[in-house]
């Protein structure tokens, strides 16, 4: 009894994600203006994503000497593809495009493709700072991946299933964020880290001249930036069915609640970017391994004991 949407939604999913991405880019522009003390009117902020996309589309691409263009192109293309594949198991409302029995693991596997993508982009430009950006992302990835996986496992244990629709159904009475707050926090941080967003943007930081994206221009940069935004939207949207009850809520239909909750999570992530400065890799790595990994393991243990005590599994 698959709860998947009709096959036509495969085309609609990227459109929906890109629409949400557009809104978030505009919101981020407005937030950046406010944080810099020069407020940007909403009409201007709403036009920024479209203008930037057109500017990058017609911009000139850049090739470096002895760079590996094949790997760079593949890496850049992998980012948005990974985000769209990971979003295939997102319930749009109450039904996802692909109702996989192991949806949680599918999400994890697809967003790990971003590691390969960013490293390839950093490597393919034959540029030192670009490579440093790629390495920073791998270091950041190694740091956030274990808490991320434990957070996913905790949500799956709470629902006793790896199917995302089952995880949503298990939150009928009580959202998971109430009983597994540490996992939710770890998931939010890892969602920001996987899209190298906000406090985790040292892979594309100013101190390495743009890092992995340093030598990207034109269409390459547009694809890379779109991939980054789509990853952020997809992973923030995944927090909704896993921890925030999916489409459950009074008065509004399921898809409206999913949209509202997703925008709320994205708003929190956008605010996080403009409030917290970039975290250095060594600080984040040590914090992640020494604090987050034991905390998420303990959280998983607590949830498992509760589920076993209630007679589950």
């Amino acid at each position, binding site marked *: 009894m698959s709860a998947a949407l009709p096959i036509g939604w495969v085309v609609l999913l990227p459109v929906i994600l890109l629409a949400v991405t557009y809104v978030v880019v505009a919101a981020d522009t407005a937030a950046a203006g406010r944080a810099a003390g020069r407020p940007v009117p909403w009409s201007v902020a709403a036009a920024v994503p479209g203008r930037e996309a057109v500017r990058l589309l017609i911009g000139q691409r850049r090739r470096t000497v002895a760079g*590996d263009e094949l790997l760079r192109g*593949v890496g850049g293309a992998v980012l948005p593809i990974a985000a769209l594949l990971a979003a295939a198991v997102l319930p749009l409302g109450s039904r996802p495009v692909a109702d*996989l029995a192991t949806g949680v693991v599918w999400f994890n596997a697809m967003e790990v493709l971003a590691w390969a993508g960013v490293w390839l982009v950093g*490597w393919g430009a034959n540029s030192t700072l670009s490579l440093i950006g790629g390495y920073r992302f791998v270091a950041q990835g190694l740091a956030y991946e274990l808490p991320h996986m434990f957070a996913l496992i905790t949500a799956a244990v709470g629902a006793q299933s790896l199917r995302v629709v089952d995880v949503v159904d298990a939150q009928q009475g009580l959202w998971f964020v109430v009983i597994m707050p540490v996992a939710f926090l770890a998931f939010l941080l890892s969602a920001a880290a996987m899209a190298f967003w906000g406090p985790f943007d040292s892979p594309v930081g100013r101190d390495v001249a743009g890092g992995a994206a340093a030598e990207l221009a034109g269409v390459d940069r547009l694809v890379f930036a779109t991939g980054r935004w789509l990853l952020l939207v997809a992973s923030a949207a995944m927090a909704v069915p896993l921890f925030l009850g999916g489409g459950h809520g009074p008065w509004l239909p399921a898809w409206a609640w999913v949209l509202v909750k997703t925008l709320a999570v994205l708003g929190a992530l956008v605010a996080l970017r403009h409030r917290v400065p970039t975290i250095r890799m060594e600080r984040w*790595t040590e914090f992640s391994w020494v604090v987050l990994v034991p905390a998420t393991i303990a959280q998983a243990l607590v949830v498992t004991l509760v589920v076993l005590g209630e007679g589950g599994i």
Partner: protein
Amino acid sequence: MSTTLFVLLSATAVVAGALVFRVDSMARATFLLLVSFLAVAGLVLMTGLHYLGLVIVLMMIIEMVVMAVFMIMYMMNPAGLVPMSMFHNTRGAALISAAVFVALASGALLVDWPARGGAAAPDLTSVLGEALMSGQMLTMMTLGVTLFATIVGTVVLATGRGRYDRLGDDLDARSSDDRDRGGVGR
């Protein structure tokens, strides 16, 4: 199961695996190996092992990215800009590999394999989990202990400075003496 898909995936796996040792660029070699792994994961998914196939995809992507980091670190010609040949004993190895392939393939084709014993359970993931936790608990514990030993052993082998370098001879320094100060202060 689909024959075309099988032929496509197995050809991808073998050709990509062979190309790993032919390309000059080390980054391309690593990601060709990743392509080979993903093709094998696709074949595993075709047999119905959805969870294990996805776990293989997940682990192989992470492992190949880490391997790429080490490749670039240790190899003298990581981008393949200078064509060079890093082989030794090619003919002997080719003979041995060909002999091994012929032996294994002929074994696969000539052995009288038994009939299929039953059908797969509907929920393979939970069956695997229950097996690992009950009947195969010895395997699980062995894997757990081995993984822990690997973590400890690899850190001991790879680190250049130990506890006494970081925290003084009596391990009582107030904060550790690292070049990169971490976030927790230990």
